[in-house]
């Protein structure tokens, strides 16, 4: 059976877990201008830091119980004994989550960026950054939620947050680089490189951790 389709079906039916993070993201984005007085200049100043942090937060929300449900109802045991490549399944699952949550959030961040800065160039460049960083965050938080499978997501967040911080710093640098039009490509490539390492390593680590949990 096609795993992609099944995961898609599961996520689509769990509206709370699919739409929830996206809505939280949008709400933060809408709430932001209200907290600053409506001065265009001030809005732009803090917008991007807020953007990255809200992407981080919504990714954390999205992965909160990515494995918890399967763990509680016994699906994980079934898959481990029946499927030959568990890491591959995890990689697919993360991809589905990115496709269903990460990409919409990246699109929305493009729209909000356009709406606030009124600068198409910057917003177009922010879009790939958002795509890549949402995927990285998703992987990291999947790692965290696997670690804290039976302890709630806060523990996982504590452990994975330090790993996400360098990415946040690079993102901050990236926006500055875009605004001044210098070497943003390097930073994008740096993110892409770390993404490729993370994509390939996280599924294996996570599958090991989950097997350790099931023992």
């Amino acid at each position: 059976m096609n795993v992609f389709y099944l995961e898609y079906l599961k996520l689509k039916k769990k509206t709370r877990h699919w739409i929830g993070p996206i809505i939280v993201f949008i709400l933060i984005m809408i709430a932001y201008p209200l907290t600053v007085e409506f001065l265009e200049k001030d809005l732009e100043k803090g917008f991007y830091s807020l953007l990255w942090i809200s992407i981080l937060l919504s990714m954390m929300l999205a992965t909160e119980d990515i494995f918890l449900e399967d763990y509680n109802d016994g699906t994980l045991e079934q898959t481990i004994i029946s499927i030959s490549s568990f890491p591959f399944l995890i990689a697919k699952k993360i991809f589905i989550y990115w496709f269903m949550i990460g990409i919409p959030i990246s699109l929305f961040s493009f729209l909000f960026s356009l709406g606030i800065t009124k600068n198409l160039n910057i917003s177009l460049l922010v879009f790939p950054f958002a795509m890549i960083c949402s995927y990285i965050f998703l992987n990291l938080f999947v790692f965290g939620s696997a670690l804290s499978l039976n302890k709630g997501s806060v523990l996982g967040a504590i452990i994975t947050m330090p790993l996400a911080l360098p990415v946040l710093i690079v993102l901050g640098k990236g926006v500055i680089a875009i605004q001044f039009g210098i070497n943003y490509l390097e930073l994008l490539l740096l993110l892409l490189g770390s993404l490729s390492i993370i994509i390939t390593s996280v599924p294996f680590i996570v599958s090991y951790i989950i097997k350790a949990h099931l023992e």
Partner: protein
Amino acid sequence: MNTELIKAENISFKINENRLFHNLTFSLNKGEALHITGSNGSGKSTLIRIILGITPQSKGSIMIINNNNICYLGHKNALKGYLSVIDNLMLHGLNNHKDLNYYLEKLDLIKFLDVVVANLSFGQQKKLALLRVFLNDSDLIILDEPFVGLDKDAHDFVKNFLLKELETGKAIVYTSHIDCEIESKVLNLQ
């Protein structure tokens, strides 16, 4: 042809310095049923998980022929509460099975195909989970407490089904508190 499906020699299991069982030796051939009994906490489920290969044993060796061809039903039934019955069957790849309708009718589930699983009763959910056992074609069936929550009819149905499967040369491992008269071997963990 070798008919041995499971061959375990001197398995011991110990977790965090707590010893559950020690030096168990057993084997299982085609057409045999192994009934694992024992008091609560004696390690029945753990033994099943060792046979499945989820938990490694501390000592000893266990050999399972054809590791990937096992049908397993644990006390967690692997059903998604927010999906309908037919969607759940699809998750397990059973929605197009040729015998599906026969078993659905026998288990009184045919009316509930579009009902969300969370709204079914416990016994109905158990029956739905058992469908996976009925529709499988693997040589080794492993069941953890299969009779809990079933009514008399369903109990007899499951029992007869398992007896029929044994005749066709399959092997069954199950844990249960109640005797259900299909076993050919009993393993009692104190």
